[in-house]
């Protein structure tokens, strides 16, 4: 049987708890009511074991880091960002054309190295094509006189692009240049 002092203490606490809240105090209830499971106690904080000398975990990644990285790669290999930031209005088509040919070749090579793209719908443009039932509207967009249920016959106007493989290099460690698209360049004389 429970000790006398304890009975007095519990009884008092139960009295005031039921009077004010309409319920027994949580930690006392299992001891005075049969059939209740003991409360789960917050475990004592045990001292954390020294982490094993494992390789440092990969840095926490933000999805914007990868977006910046792709821009940075196209800038590094093809100067794409410089191109978009420049105002082209003062220049003749020939001047622009000369630069663009060079840019095109470099950016294309860079993109091919890191991102593999494949068409979503195979087939020649402007040729008839069938869109099957259950197609994904994010992958295939219907235009024109859209009516009826798939399978639908139409003409292929754009084959679409999907990434089949993406191989980006690892990101630099946390905090170092993650927002850098192109480093500033200083020539030392």
């Amino acid at each position: 049987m429970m000790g006398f002092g304890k009975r007095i203490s519990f009884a008092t606490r139960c009295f005031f708890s039921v009077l004010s809240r309409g319920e027994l105090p949580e930690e006392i209830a299992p001891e005075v009511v049969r059939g209740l499971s003991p409360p789960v106690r917050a475990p004592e904080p045990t001292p954390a074991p020294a982490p094993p000398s494992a390789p440092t975990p990969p840095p926490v990644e933000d999805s914007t880091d990868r977006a910046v990285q792709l821009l940075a790669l196209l800038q590094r290999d093809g100067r794409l960002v410089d191109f978009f930031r420049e105002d082209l209005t003062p220049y003749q088509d020939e001047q622009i054309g000369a630069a663009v040919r060079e840019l095109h070749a470099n950016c294309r090579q860079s993109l091919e190295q890191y991102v593999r793209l494949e068409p979503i719908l195979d087939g020649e443009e402007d040729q008839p094509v069938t869109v099957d039932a259950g197609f994904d509207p994010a992958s295939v967009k219907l235009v024109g006189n859209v009516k009826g249920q798939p399978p639908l016959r139409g003409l292929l106007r754009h084959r679409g692009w999907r990434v089949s493989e993406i191989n980006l290099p690892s990101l630099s460690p946390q905090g170092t240049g993650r927002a850098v698209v192109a480093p500033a360049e200083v020539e030392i004389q």
Partner: protein
Amino acid sequence: MDTRFIVGIDLGTTNSAFAQFDTAAPEEEARIVVESIPQLTNPNEVEERTLLPSFLYVPGELDFPKGALALPWDREPQLFAGELARKRGAESPTRLVASAKSWLSYAAVNRTSPILPWGAPEEVRKLSPVEASAEYLGHLRQAWDARVDAKKNPELALGAQQILLTVPASFDEEARELTLRAAETAGLRHVTLLEEPQAAFYAWIDAQGEAWRKRIKVGDLILVCDIGGGTTDFSLITVSEEGGELSLRRVAVGEHILLGGDNMDLALARLLQQRLEGEGHRVDTWQLQSLWHQCRLAKEKLFAEPKSQKQPVTLLGKGSKLVGGTVKTELRREDLERVLTDGFFPVVGREEMPARQRRIGFQELGLPYAADPAVTKHLARFLSQQASAGDESGTIRRSPSGFACPTHVLFNGGVMKAGILRERVARVLDSWLQAEGFEPLGARGVLDAPDLDHAVARGAAYYGRAKRGRGVRIRSGAARTYYIGIESAMPAIPGMPAPLKALCVVPFGMEEGTEARIPGREFGLVVGEPAEFRFLSSNVRRQDEIGSLAEDWGDEIEELSPLEVTLDLDGKEDTVLPVSLETRVTEVGTLEVWCVSREGRRWKLELNIREKDEE
């Protein structure tokens, strides 16, 4: 020794490669395989390529973010080789080591002392040409070891395999010795040296299979014309018969000529730079680099498309004026013809010799690049030099004037990928052959060599197999004549150096694995004291026999570093011991010179490689 892998390594001036043969692979699958070499191509990017650009970059703290240079075998390398080294080196040249191989053969500098990057500021860590070469070999070794997991399988480590390492045929004993030291430093223990033109020929034999015996016959003379990024190297191989089988012998080797594809690309870039400047545009050094790279690409396109007459070359504007600062010019076919074909491979008569090498202080230029860029003139000189060559085999096909007349030519090296240049050289050779009364080479006379980028590495692996008895071997032997300097016994004239005579100790062509005693001469050496022998070589005089004495040789004989020895004989210090000399050409591709006492005690002389004073 029979290791599992036979590995051929091409340590090139501009690019290195390696190929292996796995003796454990089943017969039907067994073939020579070119290895892929992981290397840094960009910060944070390691990719595999079959070529490792022979460039080293020594990064400072300000170059790359931390951790950006991690390699599979080293997370924070102090320096690195390969594609990124070359790229970054173009932007920041004070930290770039390039052409280490050319420095390895340049006796006017101390090749074991840290001098590269040449002209770099104080704070840049420097390496010797030997250390730099060791770094490239070390990179290959670490890449290999990582792939085979050498820690768990030490018998598969590259250091435990049989290595065939190529050197230019024109490398003298010093440069060969230094190459071996670099290999040893890199952890490669079983190394044999092989000459690059021979490796190219082995690659041809391997590609032909058994059909090679039908392409050439007894009496043929094959010229190997190897023009890479940094050097031009000529060799002659004869075909004779032994015991009913075709037998090959390397009989002549040209001089080491520092002239190659890099000179050619730079010449094109300079032409376009002048063209742009003539139109009022400024081209600074940074843009010249870009122009150089673009010229190379435009050149390759023009070579690949014989119908096109020009290729645009565009230099994008710097900074934010990408389009605004764009200048466009073009590389025309006539530029290639004028600068490359006619500039570097002019049609010349066989008597036209290259301009003499000017002795400009090397501090200004760095390496002693060839004074005359005409490769065909250097070829003419090489073939005419055969007139004075010794002819122990009697099978070098010559005209009455002594000019060597090859029956076949094998091209090697990156430059010779261009069909137009191969045709030009073949045509020039034909004109010489016809002038001397022989048939032209024709289509049969040009041996087709596939895969010029990797031929030397493949050929070296083939040679490794041939040494084990699986394949045909080219007999070579000493590529130069070597001498000991003997000071004349004439009384000394104050102020004048005593005249020197050259005692031939290794005749040209002395076969691998043979030894010879120098007859009729003894030298009295003081026991316990270091003795020095002056050591010289010639790649022109090939008739000198062992023991013969040469005087007044003009510039036909060059002095190398001295040979040194200290006789240790307990209890006999300070006495004078008479010794004779013995020389040996080793299987590994080096020379050994020994002192032998009358009782048969032997001491090996060591090459004490030193700087040579430029005149």
